[in-house]
């Protein structure tokens, strides 16, 4: 039901040419599309009913992201809804409901600043500091959609324990430098210079903060893996379609066995990745003890298999595969960005064996 709704939307409102228009425009995403997301209820579906959401979980998010992956949606759902919204939702922050409400109606973008240049995927090792007078100093990197955010949620440390704070991006001392990303989105370097906060800016401290970071990153990792699974399915269906239509040596190139086997490999990998996705999303949905391991298994698998699938898709499209005007090369770029985010394939492989 949800899947059909998203598919219908992507077909009618989000074909590749529409996406390209958005990428080429001066905006990082299309705010009209974002409004439509709100109207469909997609911006509120992930939040608990207590916070004013629809109370759906990891399963529905995975479905949404799988379909987003097929259409290469560039709107900042991951940044605003999954990373920032669900962190607020899971927190005991007293002001969370009004913020979540603003997210649900599409009026607010919040970015989660979890990464720092020196911590390489260890998001709990934080240098950004919050002193005893609540003054914030530090630099965050690769903040997804940071250039468009109304508010920033940031990790920091008071010297003893991890803290998570939230504040307006126009607060004195906040400077934001926005960059484009390889998959057509944007991220930012954000520095804090003597940013004066007070107690009501603090979302969580200590154990609660650690758990919020871990759970949020875990859920976001699941979501981008689902997106990758969508990409992998599209890579093989689009390659199949292309090779059936492309004639060389008087026959469709799909009649060559070497290409048939390669497409079969893409199909098999896509199915195996889907299986790992199903397992991981159920574990996350049940909040199971070793859900992180299952997400790591998925992330390490799609990091390798997804990239290979997308490379094969480009190769079998020949010159068309490397043309910016064709969708297929953009799946490869998406797979690069997915592998880069939240720990690459090698990193997650170690998580499993540890």
């Amino acid at each position: 039901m949800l899947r059909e709704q998203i598919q219908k939307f992507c077909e009618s409102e989000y074909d590749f040419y529409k996406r390209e228009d958005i990428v080429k425009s001066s905006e990082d995403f299309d705010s009209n599309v974002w409004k439509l997301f709100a109207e469909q209820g997609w911006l509120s579906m992930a939040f608990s009913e207590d916070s004013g959401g629809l109370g759906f979980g990891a399963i529905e998010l995975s479905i949404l992201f799988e379909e987003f992956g097929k259409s290469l949606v560039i709107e900042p759902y991951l940044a605003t809804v999954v990373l920032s919204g669900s962190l607020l939702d899971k927190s005991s922050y007293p002001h969370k409901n009004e913020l979540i409400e603003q997210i649900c109606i599409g009026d607010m973008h919040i970015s989660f600043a979890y990464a720092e240049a020196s911590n390489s995927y260890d998001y709990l090792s934080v240098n950004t500091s919050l002193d005893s007078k609540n003054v914030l100093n530090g630099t965050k990197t690769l903040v997804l959609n940071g250039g468009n955010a109304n508010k920033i949620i940031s990790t920091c440390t008071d010297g003893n324990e991890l803290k998570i704070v939230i504040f307006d991006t126009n607060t004195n001392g906040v400077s934001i430098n926005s960059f484009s990303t390889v998959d057509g989105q944007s991220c930012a370097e954000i520095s804090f210079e003597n940013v004066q906060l007070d107690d009501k800016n603090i979302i969580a401290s200590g154990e609660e903060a650690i758990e919020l970071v871990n759970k949020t990153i875990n859920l976001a990792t699941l979501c981008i893996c689902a997106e990758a699974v969508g990409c992998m399915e599209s890579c093989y269906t689009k390659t199949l379609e292309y090779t059936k239509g492309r004639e060389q040596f008087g026959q469709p190139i799909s009649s060559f066995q070497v290409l048939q086997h390669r497409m079969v490999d893409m199909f098999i990998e896509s199915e195996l990745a889907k299986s790992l996705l199903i397992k991981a999303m159920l574990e996350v949905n049940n909040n199971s003890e070793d859900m992180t391991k299952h997400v790591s298994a998925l992330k390490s698998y799609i990091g390798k298999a997804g990239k290979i699938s997308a490379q094969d898709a480009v190769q079998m499209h020949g010159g068309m595969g490397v043309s910016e005007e064709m969708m297929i090369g953009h799946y490869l770029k998406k797979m690069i960005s997915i592998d880069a985010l939240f720990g690459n394939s090698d990193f997650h492989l170690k998580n499993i064996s540890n």
Partner: protein
Amino acid sequence: MDINFSKEDIAFRDEVRDWLANDYPKHVKEKTDSGITISKQDLVDFHKALSKKGWMGYNWPTEYGGTGWSASKLYIFNKELGLAGCPPILPFGVGMVGPVIYTFGNDEQKETFLPDILNFNTWWCQGYSEPGSGSDLASLKTKAVKRNDLDEEYYVVNGAKTWTTLAQNADWIFCLVRTDSSGIKQEGISFLLIDMKSPGIEVKPIITIDGDHEVNTVFFSDVKVPAKNLIGEEGKGWTYAKFLLAHERFGIAAVGSSMRELDRLKKIVNDIDNDDLRKKVGELEVSLSALEITELRLLSELENGGHPGAESSILKIKGTEMQQKISELFVEASGEYALMYPGPHGYGSNDKPAGPDYAANGLSAFLNLRKTSIYGGSNEIQKNILSKFVLGV
């Protein structure tokens, strides 16, 4: 078989190194060393510097103004230039059309075109692939019809060529055109030289996934080409094309430049102290060494009068895979910073990416090098060649 170089070869290597240290244009070197994209003028300066030294005709016999080098000298020259990070020598003039002209062209054509190629006064591009003819090149449809007006003989050319590298800079294009559609497809093809300034030619850019404008589609509508620009005989174009493809193999393994890149990668991997990547770099080093020695073996066969021919497809397949894998490891070494890449508006509000320098360059190379396993006869076609002509199946 001898895969070691002679004393003479070693002396030659030192001469090349000396040229690279002193006469390789400094402004080009500075850019390639720091990974900055070089301009059209930089490329011209580089080629002119080679001309000045008399090395532009690296693969030509002395009677046409070439170096007359042995296969091992050619190999050394190519490897040293690669190791020094030089841009690849543009193959279209000196590597491709030049040998076709001096082998199959008439005296007038040789006098008209060869000196300008050696002095890099003309920039050539290649009109082979068409929108409907890629791997199946012989199915090409661009048509040339012969006319005779007032004692002036000329061809009228209509059609389109695609994936034409740097056509936007080119003065001339050499084209495979169809002059006869009646017989088997290979027999109706002719080899025509066309001035890019001719009325009726339109060059349309193709932007590739790395965001670059390197290739184009070239459209011909009623383009008038003097009949004297036909190379050899009408209908023999396929023979000349195959001859040319054999020449294209030179340096395709790109051993020198891969060694340089692998070396750069190794330093980065040691800096970031990543054991997973160290292992992957080690594996690539072994493969690159195997590739280099294989190239030397083929070379030694050539020097001893053998005709390796189809085996050189190994070099195309493994050489391009090597380039692609090295670039992939640069991307992996960039970690999270592989995310940043200039879009249609550059880096958003910035001119430079955040994170390490090698991140954006690595990703740019990774995306750009996808083409290497597709062009010049895709790697699948190379495997067909090997299975047919080497394995005999």
